[in-house]
């Protein structure tokens, strides 16, 4: 896709290693926001954004509620909240019931982003051990967006991307070392 307006990356077990390898190679002039939803333990937020910010010159920040979504920024969804995106391109956090035993849920953010960005959205699902994100990818496709998953053969835990390939219409299946070129080509 060209002229992508937002990239949302979801992942669970085994996804951090992928992010650590991919983020350093992302073009620092990337003209769209990158929103990262990963399952993890409660209360470890700042650690994750600190860790990821050492891997890139781009701004990495944990999302504050109602802040504007800006291009060229990497946003980390805080633990224990769902992330939604408003039509006016601000973030809303939500502490409602877990979805797929998860909060944040990848499905919730993929679906919300699909409504806002439509066919200018790209969603990428990484390694993980449950199927959170799969329904979200189906919604993204329904709204004309682009779907990508980590090649299950390269995933530490292949269940999540494998389920996505089985159940959703996936445009790109990417090995870890193909991801940065793919992301950089979206602008």
């Amino acid at each position, binding site marked *: 896709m060209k002229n992508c307006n937002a990239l949302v990356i979801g992942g669970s077990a085994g996804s951090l290693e992928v992010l650590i390898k991919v983020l350093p190679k992302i073009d620092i002039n990337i003209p769209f926001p990158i929103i990262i939803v990963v399952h993890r333990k409660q*209360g470890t937020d700042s650690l994750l954004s600190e860790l990821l910010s050492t891997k890139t010159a781009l701004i990495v920040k944990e999302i*504050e*509620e*109602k802040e504007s979504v800006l291009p060229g920024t990497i946003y980390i969804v*805080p633990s224990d*909240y769902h992330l*939604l*995106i*408003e*039509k006016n391109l601000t973030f*809303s*956090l*939500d*502490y*409602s*019931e877990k979805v797929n035993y998860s909060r944040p849920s990848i499905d*919730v953010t993929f679906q*919300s982003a699909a*409504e806002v960005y439509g066919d200018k959205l790209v969603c990428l699902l990484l390694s993980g051990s449950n199927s959170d994100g799969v329904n979200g990818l189906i*919604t993204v496709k*329904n*709204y004309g967006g682009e779907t990508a998953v980590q090649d299950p053969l390269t995933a530490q835990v292949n269940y999540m991307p494998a389920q996505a390939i089985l159940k959703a219409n996936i445009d790109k299946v990417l090995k870890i070392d193909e991801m940065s070129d793919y992301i950089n080509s979206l602008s």
Partner: protein
Amino acid sequence: MPNSSSINDEQVETLITDVLEQYGYDFTGYSRASFKRRLLRLFSLDKQVSFAEFRYKIANDSTYFKRFVEQITVNVTEMFRDPVFYKALREKVFPNLGTYPFIRIWLAGCSTGEEAYSMAILLKELNLLNKSLIYATDINPTVLEKAAQGMFPLSQMKQYSENYIGSGGTKDFSSYYSANYSLAKFDNELKAKMIFSTHNLVSDHSFNEFQLILCRNVLIYFDRDLQFKVLQLFDNSLEKLGYLALGTKETTDFSPISKRYKRLETEKIWRKLSDEKL
């Protein structure tokens, strides 16, 4: 194409207008993304088939409207949620408030009451419960009935006990409740200092002056304008040198009241300044 049985943005606005006109509940300042998601959830939970029927039912069936309010608002809560927050109350806030002859606390958006009972336990351990009064309010009468019962699922107690210990609690958490089949019934002593009442942050006014106001994970569902309005309501309801506590992702920054408050280091707790400091 997007699912045809769903509700579009225009229909969301229609419902908000209906509900305001029919019942006087004003959801116009609610964050639309969350609100719409709750609507869709209810639509699908109740197996509604068309927007027209859903709309008719909400506007004409007041029993169903009660369910609507219950389901549209988020009622997910825990006892001693964010243990570090309670630790800060224990160590930084109550040592100050404890010197007052009387402590009035407002829990705004108290939901099913887990936070009220946590607060009562904290006050009891600090020997402050006798001179405290906890006003627990919510927009939703159904959750308040539940809160007044003081019974929570026994299955949650392991988690709550861990939270309690994380908050600096040193007692045996199970000494505060008795097991009753699948429920944990909390001591009546804790409840004796609670007053439950409906209060709508959007439309109701200040009803007392407090030394501590807690409103955690409620403002996230409001847009910025409504957040400012509610913060102003809290400011009007808080004594000088009183404390305002918000959720871990909420802030008074950017709001007009922020200049009258000083934040307690890293906590989401703000202290209202005395006149001299203004």
